[in-house]
């Protein structure tokens, strides 16, 4: 396994007193980040696109996997191809503009293909 991006269970943003979105990483995303959970500071709410951008900054090793997918017919950039996003176990729309809020528990679940 490659060197973890951060030692310990969480990226450095965890443990801060301000409101945050709690991220659980799975599959190759977890492996790239080197941690399973990341706490992203969040004032009230942010979009999924902003959340992923914050994760890219906090855990740079995830950047390649989090690159946006092909643009939608409307010209908006999409979430990374094959990335399922769950909030409290509910699948969220693959829409970078979808809002998440402080206190949400979000799971990032990339589709996998190991055979």
């Amino acid at each position, binding site marked *: *396994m490659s060197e973890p991006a951060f030692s310990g269970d969480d990226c450095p943003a965890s443990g801060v007193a301000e409101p945050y979105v709690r991220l659980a990483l*799975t*599959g*190759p995303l977890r*492996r*790239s980040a080197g941690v399973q959970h990341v706490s992203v500071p969040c004032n009230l709410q942010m979009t999924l696109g902003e959340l992923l951008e914050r994760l890219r900054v906090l855990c740079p090793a995830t950047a*390649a*996997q989090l*690159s946006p*997918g*092909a643009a939608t017919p409307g010209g908006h950039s*999409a979430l*990374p*191809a*094959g*990335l*399922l996003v*769950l909030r409290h*176990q*509910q*699948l969220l729309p693959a829409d970078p503009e979808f809002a998440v809020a402080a206190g949400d528990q979000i799971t990032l*679940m*990339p*589709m*996998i*293909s*190991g*055979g």
Partner: protein
Amino acid sequence: MSKRLLTDEEREIWSWQLDVEGFGDAGQERLKAATVLVSRVGGVGSAAAYELAAAGVGRLILAHGGLLQPSDLNRQLLMTHDWIGRPRVESAARRLKELNPRLDVVTIAEQITVENADELVGMADCVVDAAPLFQERLAMNDAAERLGRPVVEAAMYELEASLTVIHPPGTLRFRDLVPEVPAGWQRRFPVFGAVSGTVGCLAAMEAIKLLAGFGEPLFNRLLRLDLRTMDSRVVALR
């Protein structure tokens, strides 16, 4: 799905599973008449094919190119050490016939591509997708959607396993989940054979349910297992 009547000997071989509620002679006859495409027969596909052969599926089409490498042997249970350097798919066919001599095995010594997907998927009643590359999964699912065949999507990564059944229009399309090849997916992935074997067996059970017409296949639901913690979740996809 059509049926083929069982002989007395076949009824004896499968007698323990004939007792499964909702399966019975009718289910076994459907399996006997069925053809399943398994691509590939690596860690996941080997286990799936082995369980399908054991269960009495009549015909398996095995698609897998390349020659057996030493590094395949930690997970590809239809391969043996003495077969290193020889075609993987032939080893798989040999081992399956040892288990079930009645099985009709068709070997295709190549991977699924956009060029051959329609022909190979069209030969089968059901597909077990155990390919390590998203390009193959997309080609197989596109063909299956055109031809109206269900696909059991089985995959793993490290200690995680993933399983769902794709059969549009009743379910999402695979492309609804994976519109294009995801960035960063690498051909070589960390794997224990016990993990790939687990999801391979689960995939075989989904195929058996689809073919025999009983139980509740994972339509519009995705099972995700983490064997590191033994946590499991079923995600509603629609």
